[in-house]
């Protein structure tokens, strides 16, 4: 099989890249070893967040935000996206100081999307929050969506644009060929001019095959969901002193996440919850929202995320090859970036450069001499 681009990894980033490449007229094949959205894409908490991002990610997140605000035009699906805002809550004075420092820094850099709010306004915005909160930092134009619906919307749009998606196809070898690459995967061989590496937690392995070794690690962020509760919460709540990502879905359920890891293994794709971590998240929720004490938790789950020690992804061209582009290792916060990163990948493939600053995400930024 011949294609212009072989996209390795069919999660949200893979589908976004494929869609954007196909929209620019390229013939694209996606190779996904399980099924679309099986891992990080389908298992995250669905936060669409610019708030508190690493400085290097901010320009990308702001550009992505504009796409999210009209995601229906982009994908033909509303992805259950709602602009409800995201709000980091400080439980202590020290936490509030941190938020203040962040706010100042963002203003210094010329950004105004994050806004300090005082305790009174916070309590008005979030009924039921503990009376002891000190204040918060809010990004009013942020929101939340359904990770699974969004990923599948990208998939559907990609298919409609002529992309071939092969599931159950694990890439075995990559070999340079006359016009780019020969990719051998389960039951299929693809000759492609270009490779895009969106293999998530397995992106390090693919990067290695391409010739760009990276110290990608992984973890399994855990989430839990409650029974349906009458609607009371609009913004997504982010913890400052303690990790928390807490939201109420449109159907009333509460999704509680926040970076506590499950116990598991990436390569057997098995995991189980760590109740010490779930307990810590529950404590945080109970302390911030005392009235939720009697709400039952009905399920926990985890995703498998690729992570780097500096907590930002690899986005950019390969160093070893002029025919490969990377976009992986989103450290648990890649969901919101998917719309823009797909465009940037398409730019990199077609023009060799991106319209937003991505130097910080370079694949060769790591000191691999260990």
């Amino acid at each position, binding site marked *: 099989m011949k294609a212009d681009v072989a996209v390795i990894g069919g999660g949200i980033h893979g589908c976004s890249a494929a869609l954007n490449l196909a929209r620019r007229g390229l013939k694209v094949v996606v190779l996904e070893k399980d099924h679309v959205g099986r891992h990080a894409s389908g298992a995250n908490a669905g936060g669409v967040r610019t708030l508190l991002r690493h400085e290097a990610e901010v320009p990308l997140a702001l550009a992505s935000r504009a796409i999210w605000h009209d995601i229906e035009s982009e994908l033909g699906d509303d992805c259950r996206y709602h602009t409800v805002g995201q709000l980091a809550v400080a439980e202590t004075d020290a936490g509030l100081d941190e938020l203040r420092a962040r706010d100042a820094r963002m203003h210094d850099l010329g950004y105004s999307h994050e806004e300090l709010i005082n305790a009174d306004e916070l309590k008005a915005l979030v009924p039921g929050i503990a009376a002891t909160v000190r204040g918060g930092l809010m990004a009013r134009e942020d929101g939340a969506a359904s990770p699974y619906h969004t990923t599948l919307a990208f998939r559907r749009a990609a298919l409609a644009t002529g992309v071939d998606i092969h599931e159950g196809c694990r890439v075995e070898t990559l070999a340079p060929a006359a016009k780019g690459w020969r990719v051998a995967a389960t039951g299929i061989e693809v000759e492609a001019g270009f490779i895009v590496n969106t293999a998530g937690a397995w992106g390090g392995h693919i990067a290695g095959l391409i010739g760009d070794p990276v*110290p990608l690690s*992984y973890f399994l962020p855990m989430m839990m969901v409650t029974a349906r509760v009458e609607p009371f919460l609009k913004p997504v709540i982010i913890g400052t*002193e303690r990790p928390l990502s807490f939201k109420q879905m449109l159907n009333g359920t509460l999704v509680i996440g926040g970076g506590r890891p499950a116990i598991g293994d990436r390569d057997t794709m098995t995991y189980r919850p760590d109740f010490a971590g779930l307990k810590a998240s529950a404590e945080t929720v109970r302390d911030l929202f005392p009235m939720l004490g009697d709400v039952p938790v009905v*399920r926990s789950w985890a995703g498998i995320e690729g992570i780097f020690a500096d907590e930002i992804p690899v986005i950019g061209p390969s160093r070893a090859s002029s025919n490969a582009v990377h976009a992986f290792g989103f450290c648990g916060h890649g969901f919101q970036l998917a719309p823009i990163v797909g465009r940037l990948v398409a730019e990199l493939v077609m023009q060799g450069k991106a319209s937003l600053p991505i130097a910080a995400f370079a694949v060769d930024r790591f000191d691999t001499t260990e």
Partner: protein
Amino acid sequence: MNMKASFDDSVELAIIGAGPAGLAAAITAGELGVKATVFDEGSGPGGQIYRAIEDTGNRPERLALLGEDYAKGGDQVQRFRASGCRYLPGHGVFDIAPDGGLGVNGPDGARWIAARRVIIAPGAMERPVPLPGWTLPGVMGAGAAQTLLKSSGLVPSTPVVLAGSGPLVVLIARQLLAAGARIAAVLDTTPRANFMNAAPLLPSAYVAGNDLRKGLRWLREVKRSGTAWHKGVSRIRIEGDEAVEAISFSAGGRSQRIACRLVLLHEGVIPNVQLSMAAGIEHDFDDTQWCWRPRADAFGRTGVEPILVAGDGAGIGGADLAADAGHLAALAVAADLGRLAAGDLETRSRPILARMRAGRRVRRFLDCLYRPHQEVLAPPDDETMVCRCEEVTAGELRRVAAMGCPGPNQAKAFTRCGMGPCQGRMCGLTAAAVLASAGGRSMAEVGHLRIRPPVKPITVGELAGLAGVGEPPAGAPPMPTGPKDEEDA
């Protein structure tokens, strides 16, 4: 919050469930000096089959109705009480880890406990019977009506329609009649072909035990009472606006309709597998019993070393087989813990295994005779509710199957089927069957709903107060020391 220290954080043998298998395991453990702690979600020992037996012992009016099979549970429970085990009613287990750790929720709060060995004996539940109208008030399981009789001495006061197939249908019909209830009709859904298929197994089953002879006697009694008994029933629909008003069905080529307000459904029982799945035990689809079962050897040993399974929770066999399985599992644990020499294990288990082989001959006959009709497993009408909690119909599942949804886990994300409070207990098998049938695949291929702990709901407050777990690292999400990919370069 101060947790009253009602027990240590670590136990030698944890037994989950106090039905026949759990009771037998505790008794045997006691005999061999293994310290057992029994966690029971119920309020008193006996599981479902001997439910409320300690109380009913003082209630002759109920005991007379429930029969001798129920009454003999009283002896088991007495021996259980004398066994020296620690018994914890009102304690539900919401998770089991492969190292034998248990998450337990009880009146004093939630706690994580370490156990050297765990015997999971959670028993069975009635197979869900999805039909049009089955979610209406006034529709229950036949076993549910029996539970009401056992634990509260309640009897239907309105004529009952009993619909379904299986040994329990006959038993319950007899009990209802003896209790003075009126049965408007029994709708026997046993497929006609089953009689042919089961016939070859009948002789060895008949010889093997008393059960079959008893069952036939009851059947004759019920029929002699003049109760309308319709055979080969299909296409059942339950009608009503806010509650049951009537039931319609097809039998002998004719459509019929019976006005009623209480419908009892029963199509056999299936193992409760939530805990065995949470523990990471492999499960196989049993095509004869049409359910998922944990993979285990004759002693109940699974591939997960500290954990054994016993009783109907490991595969349907009835009370006697369950008790034997409980004995064997406890013997195996005793041997593992050095309380029983290998030779003694062999000697003691041999007669039990022999008895179980005979019991299984009866079971194979019953499984074959009462194999549910395909329309019970994968309801043909699109309007039939499959996921009661989230209100997902068979039609919606077929729609997502047509979109390429391969199994219940993906269907869950699309439709919310399996995401409600029952965590897939009522819809998991049906969803898999609908998807399998729509995609022309087997149940084993389609797979089962992935169980995600907690397998029983635990509140935010209870989880926040969970005792017995260490502290996770404070502050920002820990930078994990997971394996790195450099080496793959």
